[in-house]
């Protein structure tokens, strides 16, 4: 040990010393829990018992054969189809507006972040009240003879959840787009204008391509978010109606903490994480472009 230390230069020791707190933090906060989680995925364990039985890949096989896993998968895809286009369209629109104003820009940008920092449980309760059968939204709509069963129709419940999540992330995604917009050099627009390019051409030929890093980040965030939706359906619909708002994380939660199948819940989480990573990888391949 002493001989190893002797070979390490003193300035390298300083470097190792500086990263040591982070290494310790990582080991405690995520490496150990991750390894432990992976290890119990191969076991049968009910949390309150000390007995853990090794059962190989059985948990993983059972997850793949569980109908609710595939229902949650379908619901996640539905969520993505609603959430990603709407959130990108709206957040880009907000970013374009913010980019055009100079007065109180920070104030408005911060205002949009209020939803992002709001407590999930609190705003879920508020939305539940607003969208309920005789809530304020349906009261307004009844004026034109419409009543929408926002959370009680299996066909639109997940879309309603997606709308709430759009509201939450609108400000955050707008700021990412705003940062992207502000990093585009004005000279590019000036030279395009000299070349006769109109506003629409500039938007589609300059703004959109040069916002590619922002699009990529938002796509990645949105996909990861779609696989992690929990608070809103848990608080508002409980996974119903007819399992139309069941999500992966709700299933992991129920299996682990309600039904006390911690090993099974862990294997469920590992499979979901793998699918999530695969989606992110795939989307990066499609969306990410070199704009240098």
């Amino acid at each position, binding site marked *: 040990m002493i001989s190893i230390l002797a070979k390490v230069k003193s300035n390298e020791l300083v470097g190792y010393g500086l990263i040591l707190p982070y290494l310790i933090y990582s080991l405690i906060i995520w490496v150990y829990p991750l390894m432990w989680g992976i290890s119990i995925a191969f076991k*049968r364990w*009910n*949390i*309150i*018992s000390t007995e853990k039985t090794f*059962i190989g890949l*059985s*948990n993983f*096989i*059972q997850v793949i054969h569980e109908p609710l896993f595939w229902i949650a998968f379908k619901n996640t895809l539905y969520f993505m189809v609603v959430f990603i286009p709407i959130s990108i369209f709206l957040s880009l629109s907000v970013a374009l507006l913010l980019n055009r104003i100079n007065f109180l820009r920070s104030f408005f940008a911060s205002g949009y972040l209020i939803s992002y920092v709001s407590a999930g449980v609190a705003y879920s309760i508020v939305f*539940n*009240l607003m969208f*309920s*059968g*005789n*809530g304020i939204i349906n009261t307004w709509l*009844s004026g034109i*003879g419409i*009543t929408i*069963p926002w*959370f*009680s129709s*299996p066909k639109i419940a997940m879309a309603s959840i997606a709308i709430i999540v759009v509201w939450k992330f609108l400000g955050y995604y707008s700021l990412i787009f705003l940062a992207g917009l502000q990093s585009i050099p004005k000279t590019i627009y000036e030279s395009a204008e000299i070349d006769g390019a109109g506003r629409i051409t500039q938007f589609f030929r300059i703004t959109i391509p040069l916002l590619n890093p922002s699009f990529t980040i938002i796509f990645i965030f949105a996909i990861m978010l779609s696989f992690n939706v929990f608070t809103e359906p848990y608080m508002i*619909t*409980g*996974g*119903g*109606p*007819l*399992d139309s708002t069941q999500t992966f994380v709700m299933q992991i939660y*129920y*299996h682990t*903490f*309600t*039904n*006390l*199948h911690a*090993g*099974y819940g862990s294997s469920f989480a590992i499979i979901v994480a793998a699918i999530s990573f695969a989606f992110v990888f795939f989307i990066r391949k499609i969306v990410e472009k070199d704009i240098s």
Partner: protein
Amino acid sequence: MLQHRLILFATGLCLAGCSQSRPEGVLTYWCATNSFEIEFARRIVAEWNQDTTHLPVRFQPVPAGQSSEEVILAAIVGRTTPDIYSNIWPGVIEQYREAGAVVRLDQFADFDSVLYARLPDELIEQFRSPDSGFYQFPWKANPLLLYYNKGLLEEAGITELPRTYDQFFALAPRLVKDFDGDGHYDRWLLDPNVMAEWWQRFFDFYTFYIAATGGESLLDGHEVQLDRPETAAVLSFFRRGYQEGYFPLSIFQEDIFLAQKVVFHISGPWSISHLEKYKTEDFRYGITLLPVPQAGDQPVHTYGDPKNIVIFSTTRYPQEAWEFVKFMTSRAADRSLLEITSQLPMRRDLITDSLYADYFTANPLLEIFARQIPFIVGTDHTIYLQEIFDIISQEYEAACLYQVQPIAQAVASMTKRVTALIDRESRGKAGVQ
């Protein structure tokens, strides 16, 4: 000199013998977090601690969490459970028992005499675990009954309360209303909760199932009892209610019973104080038994939503903890429970004991619930109870709320799926999970 020594010796003996110092150690007791039960715990603990021969008790409300069950679960895992916990739901007892987390109470010499003296005979076996032991002390219950709006019934000229499903629906044309003419009712007959969470089914399907079957639960030992005409009848009742629009398929932001938008409402005694506090002058209500498929002379049973007391295995003072449990479920303590919390102790003499008579004279609506105590049913003893109710909730939702599967298929499916779980349990292995 010898005389002085004798006096000193005698004084010493007297001091040692006459003064009983408080035993060393402390019992920890967690109670529910609602203010009434906290107040009850405060009073009971204060009375207990006045007697210095007792091991002192320190109480606190169960720590904050998503639910008390989750907090207790975390405490079991961390081995930080209190000595005593009241307000435990019997549905989780089997999990705790299998994990060795709770003390077997019938090991105490006087357990049987205390239990049999307090609990109605009809209820005793409900709380016995499959290994024939008792791991919970039955404490209080909240029977579910049918609240009804007196004014709306009188307005419709209805003088007789419905006893059967047919009678119940026969009232619908006179009670439900479409005020704005949009083709949807704005006043409904009954308002079961439409949420899919497993525990919601205790307050609609399970309550009606118990009433329809004359007081049976889902299991008879390891045998699943769901495949029976009563299950189909209960599901058909709810299906008809939703199909014909008599039950709202919606979640509301207000109490629609209080707002007089629904005529009947399933609830427990806890609703009385809420209704009394918020009711308007024109709101009058009554409480009656649940309707059943076929009326008869037999009493109508219901779900009792019992909450009990356990001693956790982490205790260092099981005997002393048991003494405290007896103290907090004594005749006098039950009077305090009634007064402070308006919750019903599971006592065989609740209606007949003169100690409680004036309370029920002053609270006649609560007496209706108290009379129901011998006819309550709790939960089955299985580690899979939550999963069973998950299954029931899924089938109920599909068959009743959205009518996407026939009743017969729902009964067959829930029977098959619940049987698979019980088979797994009885084989003594938890399958893959």
